């Protein structure tokens, strides 16, 4: 094992000896280039036969220093790199960061109604798109290949909407501090209607392919079981926590963007195994569909989509030629950004993976002083070393899939 020979740096409690080789056990490095680790996860395994004795995930292969980079960008520019953390649900990241910054600016209550609705729209679209990737890849891990194509087809429709509004398929950078970047384009609502029409049928397909499938059930039932006590102790949030029976959803516990005015359920299961997590996520997609239908009705009302404050939001391009103040404000915001009063704040949203939080500190300047992410994937993945021992290697793959980590976010 090469990791034992790596040099270390002080201070002294560095112990690169990750797993030991005792008795009949064997050390196996799974990953980082393993197709079923959903990215660049390496797991140092101590195995006896096919049974895992000890599993130690090694992360950091995708560490890109996003938190450090963000400290050197304007408040608005930082949003660009922050969206790259959870690349399957970029709008959740952008939204959470914007909420934290708005909290420090003291403009939480001033975001226009329509901007809130559009934010809800994209936070749910992104949840569906993310769950599509999860279901497709989880299916492939277990051997159900066809479900992948149905999932990615649906995801493509969801990303099309994201592209139509934000201009980019993966990282639209559409949610901004103070609202969203421009109103929805012409023809958006027709495409949105088409998606809403397609979704229930596609959901039936997905359920039909897997839910009652005996092979799928055999592979997932009673695998990676988490009791509610364990889930809380290991700081697991999101669908994995709800599959263990605790109905904690940030949208309900700490409502944001007017989620308290929408009608939806928080699906829970009591089993806590991989199959329960699968069911919870599928139910969640249907709850998202319910929210989207309510969003569709509210989108009929026109209105502003950005806060009316030229110190935070650049004035509309058309006004620049007509008004000197607009030109000055535009120039100031583009050239040196805006300042946020000193202080610290925490805001969280329910990302597809769990509670995503940002603790941001401002020193009163035009750049964030510190952005600390509470990455749901990191904590959800951490529980793996607790639940893996005693299971087969093949079940380990199911556990990783059912916890749904995204490595852009684990490593940041």
């Amino acid at each position, binding site marked *: 094992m090469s990791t034992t020979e790596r040099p270390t740096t002080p201070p002294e409690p560095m112990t690169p000896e990750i797993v030991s080789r005792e008795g009949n056990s064997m050390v196996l490095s799974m990953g980082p280039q393993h197709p079923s680790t959903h990215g660049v996860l390496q797991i140092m395994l101590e195995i006896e036969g096919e049974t895992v004795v000890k599993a130690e995930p090694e992360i950091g292969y995708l560490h890109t220093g996003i938190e450090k980079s963000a400290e050197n960008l304007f408040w608005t520019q930082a949003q660009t790199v922050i969206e790259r953390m959870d690349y399957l649900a970029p709008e959740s990241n952008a939204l959470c960061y914007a909420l934290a910054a708005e909290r420090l600016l003291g403009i939480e209550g001033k975001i226009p109604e329509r901007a809130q609705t559009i934010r809800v729209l994209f936070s749910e679209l992104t949840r569906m798109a993310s769950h599509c990737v999860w279901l497709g890849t989880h299916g492939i891990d277990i051997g159900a290949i066809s479900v992948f194509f149905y999932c990615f087809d649906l995801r493509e429709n969801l990303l099309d909407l994201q592209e139509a509004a934000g201009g980019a398929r993966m990282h639209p950078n559409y949610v901004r501090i103070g609202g969203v970047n421009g109103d929805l384009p012409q023809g958006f609502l027709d495409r949105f209607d088409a998606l809403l029409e397609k979704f229930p049928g596609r959901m039936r397909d997905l359920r039909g392919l897997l839910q009652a499938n005996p092979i799928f059930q055999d592979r997932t039932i009673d695998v990676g079981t988490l009791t509610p006590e364990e889930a809380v102790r290991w700081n697991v949030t999101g669908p994995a926590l709800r599959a263990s029976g605790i109905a904690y959803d940030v949208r309900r516990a700490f409502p944001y963007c007017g989620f308290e005015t929408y009608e939806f359920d928080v699906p829970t299961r009591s089993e806590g195994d991989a199959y329960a997590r699968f069911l919870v996520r599928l139910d969640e997609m249907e709850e998202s569909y319910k929210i989207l239908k309510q969003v569709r009705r509210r989108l009929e009302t026109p209105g502003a989509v950005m806060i009316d404050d030229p110190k935070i939001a650049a004035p509309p391009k058309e006004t620049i030629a007509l008004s000197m103040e607009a030109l000055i404000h535009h120039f100031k915001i583009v050239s*040196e950004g805006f300042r946020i009063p000193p202080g610290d704040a925490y805001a969280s949203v329910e990302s597809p993976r769990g509670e995503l939080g940002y603790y941001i500190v401002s020193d009163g300047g035009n750049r964030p002083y510190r952005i600390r992410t509470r990455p749901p994937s990191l904590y959800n993945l951490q529980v793996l070393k607790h639940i893996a021992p005693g299971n087969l290697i093949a079940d380990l793959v199911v556990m990783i899939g059912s916890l749904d980590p995204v490595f852009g976010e684990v490593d940041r």
Partner: protein
Amino acid sequence: MPSTQTPSITGLATDPTSLRVDVGDAEVRRVELAALRATMEELHASGYSMLLDLGAVDYPERTPRFDVVYHLLAMPVKASTLAEVGTPKRLRVLCGVDGEKPVCPSVMDIWPSADWAEREVFDLFGITFTGHEDLRRIQMPYDWEGHPLRKDYPLRGPARERAPRPAFALKSNVVAGAPPSGRTLEALQAQVKAARERAARESES
């Protein structure tokens, strides 16, 4: 050495948390390092069952230099419905840690989920957690030198920061101490002018 890449509009506060206004995101409590363990044990016993997050912030001009920031959540430790969960209490605990000898007690035995979070703070800030069973780097390679999220760690890493790099002709960049290079605004304008003249001559001939 502070990064010279982005001359920033500097803020006024050496400790922004002292200037915070209540934004209603969480209850905030500042704890002395000596009392941290006892406070945490007490908080855990009083129902803060979840260590939501553990991070750190570096304030180089302040004593103590670092803040370790804990976010706690009072979550029911059994299967519970939406109504039973309600709006759980959220608590932020700030604890100052000395910059010369950055040592902080670990809370891993109270909340096992602190494991990777403490490793990350150790890795990126160089704060040692006493009592942590397996404190080693988590994001950076094991042989990495320095702690990247400290404010005195250059943005592009020490190796690249020392080498002269092309400075754009922004005045602010020169003021901030970027090494001089041939790429000043005047030089660029001269290049553009020469290229235009060359193009004009070619079109004439």
